[in-house]
């Protein structure tokens, strides 16, 4: 009996060491691995993330922004009105994706190309960050407000270029910076600027195994847009269920493409002009396995 007890103690004492030794053994041969899920989807709320769709993946996206919550019960807290965007994104390679969409906001068609230059890798000091560039274009298809004057098709066009630099600091926390440029072909007044420079920040904090808390904010450099407009700030949660991701948020921006959410945000958080909104993303693998 004494013999068995001794053996048992020895085994119990050794198992963790063996396990540890096993772990150390592997660690020595750990190759750098790409960091996954810096963000759950390719958008934080409105802005792109460094995430890219996998090759031959089609992502059907529905974005909804409701009316102001302050409308109260009469407006069903904003749900009586809605601004939406329907979009299709597609992964050409694991790092290159394209997308198109149609928004109710100014009846706009938009498209973009996004390329990930660098993917953050574990155990690789040369690749500490994920970096992507997204370039997009949008076409406003509203009827001309003054059809009698000489209107130019180019006046409908707007462009955006956005660099995303992100790091997943831990399993729970990711941070992204988004220096951005939006170009508008036609503006109202010389007081403003056709080119709008903005700096965005996005934060993701995991709060449950498949739920994250997200924040997105853009600082718009002064004297570029009308005083009627302000900086977009959005707070939200992502709920991931595999191929689906649900994003629920509170935001003061109702447009969901770059020109709209950076240069045309007329609502202010400090005045209670907050909108509830959601993005639904459904991914389909459309190529062969």
């Amino acid at each position, binding site marked *: 009996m004494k013999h068995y007890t001794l053996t048992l103690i020895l085994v119990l004492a050794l198992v963790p060491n063996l396990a540890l030794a096993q772990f150390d053994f592997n660690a020595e041969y750990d190759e750098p691995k790409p960091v996954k899920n810096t963000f759950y989807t390719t958008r934080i709320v409105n802005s792109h993330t460094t995430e890219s769709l996998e090759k031959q993946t089609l992502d059907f996206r529905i974005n909804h922004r409701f009316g102001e919550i302050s409308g109260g019960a009469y407006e069903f807290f904003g749900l009586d009105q809605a601004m939406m965007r329907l979009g299709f994104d597609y992964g050409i390679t694991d790092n290159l994706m394209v997308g198109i969409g149609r928004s109710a*906001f100014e009846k706009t068609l938009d498209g973009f190309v996004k390329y990930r230059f660098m993917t953050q890798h574990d155990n690789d000091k040369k690749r500490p960050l994920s970096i992507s560039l997204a370039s997009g274009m949008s076409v406003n298809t509203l009827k001309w407000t003054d059809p009698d004057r000489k209107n130019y098709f180019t006046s409908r066009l707007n462009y955006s270029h956005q660099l995303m630099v992100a790091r997943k600091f831990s399993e729970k926390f990711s941070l992204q910076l988004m220096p951005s440029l939006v170009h508008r072909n036609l503006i109202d007044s010389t007081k403003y600027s056709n080119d709008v420079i903005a700096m965005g920040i996005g934060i993701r904090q995991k709060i449950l195994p498949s739920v994250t808390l997200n924040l997105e904010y853009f600082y718009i450099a002064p004297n570029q847009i009308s005083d009627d407009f302000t900086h977009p700030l959005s707070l939200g949660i992502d709920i991931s269920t595999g191929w689906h991701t649900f994003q629920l948020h509170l935001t003061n921006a109702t447009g969901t493409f770059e020109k709209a959410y950076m240069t045309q*945000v007329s*609502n202010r958080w400090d005045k209670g002009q907050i909108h509830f909104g959601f993005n639904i993303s459904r991914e389909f693998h459309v190529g062969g396995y």
Partner: protein
Amino acid sequence: MIRKNYQAFRLPASWVVMSLFMLTITYSSCYYDVEEELYDPKCDSLDVTYMGTIRGIVFSYCQNCHNTGVESGGVILDTYEGIRAVVDDGRLLSAVKRDVVASPMPPPPSTRISDCAIEQIEVWIRRGAPKN
């Protein structure tokens, strides 16, 4: 290993093609136009008529949400009678001027209609909102 090399070659190639495509589109149609400079900034607030001015303004800004098919807020603006009803109760001017009495229209995030259009609506209402 061969496959890896092949992919390493392919990725930049596709990126270059897409970048060239984007750059071509961007710079071939990139303008720095300003409405104030591009168009005559003078506002014609003398020759204001329902058929020639007001109907066009209301149709382009309001009719999408306020017509006989979609009666948002019970307001129909595709007929003179419908427009006249919101002129008479003061809601049209209040909404477009965003003076907080009526709901601001077109609703945010759309911006206020142009100052010229507001001025033309005011002039027309001051003249009794005739169907001319």
